[in-house]
């Protein structure tokens, strides 16, 4: 039983209107001869209080998707199609002034490298209160008080005195907490976290993931979690979209996708990871490499590397199709997962 469905309909199934709906988003990069789509008709939604993961390898368009939502894409790129509905408002139609009142206020972002995202020459307190002053009319003392509360909330001890410290005086994990404080101090509805734990040690990573899960539980925060780490997604996300060459190739609840991945690319990613518990003889290797943006095949983009390839795969471009409730994939010839 396969039915063609528009992908924007695949949401968390919570019944309420999603907080964020990305519909057929196209983000193009200007090329010398023609433009190329780094994000190609991507659709997904994030419900209130949901942690939604986007996984994929470098260059698959996952970070570009995140930056498109905040309209922070590089100058040589442009959103050329689709809509981004945030709480009912299409962000692609807003002017820069309106966007600025949303960024850092209702939608915030944390990046991979806290040291490059924080300004080394200002104290942490100055940087956090700057955000507060930008979005609300409060006194200096009040802003400082709120900044201290936020640091304290994120598990930084002696928060009030730490406000006068500079970023380099914090350890890597603490810096990521400061970044999160910066992102969360205005009590946003949506947090976009782009590889938030990639630069961190595994024990610190565990703490930050616990923190994100806790904020979702206590503040009802929605999280768009961008990562290449399947383990991280499995650990805290509710649903996940797997991206390949600018497209979503599989989307669905985390438990379903990890227990029963359907797309050959998702299967390949899972199969190629070493186990923690056993030593394998050889690791599975996905042959070949990602096609270049300017040389995208007209059929399935994964066909050249796929072991399930049949003739139609190179002739027609597969659509994202729901094959079980809330679980969709873009594949002409899926097969059950055998580890």
């Amino acid at each position, binding site marked *: 039983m396969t039915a063609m469905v528009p992908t924007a309909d695949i949401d968390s199934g919570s019944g309420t209107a999603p907080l964020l709906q990305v519909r057929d988003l196209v983000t193009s990069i200007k090329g010398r001869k023609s433009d190329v789509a780094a994000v190609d008709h991507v659709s997904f939604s994030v419900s209130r209080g949901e942690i939604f993961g986007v996984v994929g*390898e*470098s260059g698959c368009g996952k970070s570009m998707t995140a930056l498109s939502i905040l309209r922070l894409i590089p100058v040589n790129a442009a959103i050329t199609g689709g809509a981004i509905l945030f709480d009912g408002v299409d962000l692609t139609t807003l002017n820069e002034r309106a966007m600025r009142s949303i960024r850092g206020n209702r939608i915030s972002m944390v990046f991979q490298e806290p040291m490059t995202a924080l300004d080394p020459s200002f104290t942490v307190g100055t940087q956090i209160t700057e955000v507060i002053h930008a979005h609300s009319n409060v006194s200096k003392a009040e802003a400082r008080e709120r900044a201290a509360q936020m640091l304290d909330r994120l598990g930084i001890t002696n928060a009030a005195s730490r406000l006068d410290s500079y970023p380099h005086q914090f350890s*890597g994990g603490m810096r990521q907490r400061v970044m999160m404080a910066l992102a969360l101090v205005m009590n946003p509805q949506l947090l976009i976290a782009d590889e938030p734990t990639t630069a961190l*040690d*595994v*024990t*610190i*990573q*565990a703490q930050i*993931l616990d923190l994100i899960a806790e904020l979702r539980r206590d503040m009802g925060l929605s999280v768009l979690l961008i990562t*290449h*780490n*399947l*383990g*991280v997604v*499995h*650990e805290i996300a509710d649903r996940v979209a797997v991206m390949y060459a600018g497209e979503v190739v599989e989307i669905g609840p985390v438990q379903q996708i*990890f227990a029963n991945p359907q797309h050959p690319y998702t299967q*390949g*990613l*899972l199969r*190629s*990871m*070493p*186990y*923690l*518990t*056993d*030593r*394998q003889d*050889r*690791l*599975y*290797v*996905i042959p070949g*490499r990602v096609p270049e943006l300017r040389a995208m095949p007209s059929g399935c983009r994964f066909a050249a590397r796929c072991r399930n390839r049949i003739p139609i795969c190179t002739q027609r471009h597969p659509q994202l199709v729901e094959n079980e409730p809330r679980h969709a994939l873009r594949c002409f010839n899926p097969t059950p997962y055998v*580890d």
Partner: protein
Amino acid sequence: MSTEPLLTVNNLVKRFPVATDFFGRSTAFVSAVDDVSLQVQRGETLALVGESGSGKSTLARLVLRLIEPTSGSVRFDGQDVLGSNKGQMQEFRRKAQIIFQDPFESLDPRMKGEVIVAEGMPDSGRSKSERKARVAELLDLVQLPADAARRFPHEFSGGQRQRLSIARALAVDPIFVVADEPVSALDVSMQSQILNLMRDLQDRLGLTYLFISHDMSVIRHMADRVAVMYLGQIVEIGPAVEVFSNPVHPYTQTLLSAVPSLIVGGTPPTLLDYEAARAAIGACTGSGSLQAVSGQPDHMVACFGEDAWVRHRGRM
């Protein structure tokens, strides 16, 4: 082949000054590597695992004598590395190679593939065509296409660049390779290719690896033996299968349990409580000294007290 370990490190210490007085004399030190002893057998992979600042990269650089230790000794292939003369050091530099995490930063962007690979080869005894043939052979060995010889580093993918840096390391016929986070900068699909390649090369060429990673799954796949480092010291060392299924030191247990769960199957590590962990290593001869785990003579764990337990595992 002798039965002496290829590499023997004894009581190695490296202290870095962290404060100086008015006259520039060092007044405070941090011990990046603090009294480390270990052996690596011929043909095996010893993995060093630990978080940033644990001293694993410093230890690797000390072993290769890229930096000088404060005290201690390094014996490699029957040779005292720290007491070697210039000629002996040249021979050591040939036999012991290193590959780094980020192949983009460790490859000269203005050199073509063939120049990068051939750079370390001895000039004498080889004609130009012989060198070319050797480069082609090395590219083939690391499964790069022949035209890689004429391409620049930026024309390669991350995985291909790491292959190129492996070919460069192998150009001088080393017997020992230090790999410092060789797959950390790579995507999952590239990572499995490079790990397979490294295991193949080890089988074919009889290489000995000192493999550094912070990724426990990668370590599990590559290591015959594992040394867990924390604050410059080895807190647990032993056969990978024993350390991963029966970690004893509280830090190793925390490290293994912090890995995001993904793959089911196999036996997850048994987490011990304080009494059981202490019982496993018997009576300590002194704080911090390595003790054999009962019933596992090759599996050694540093003595730890209640304070260390609480620090790593939380409440007792």
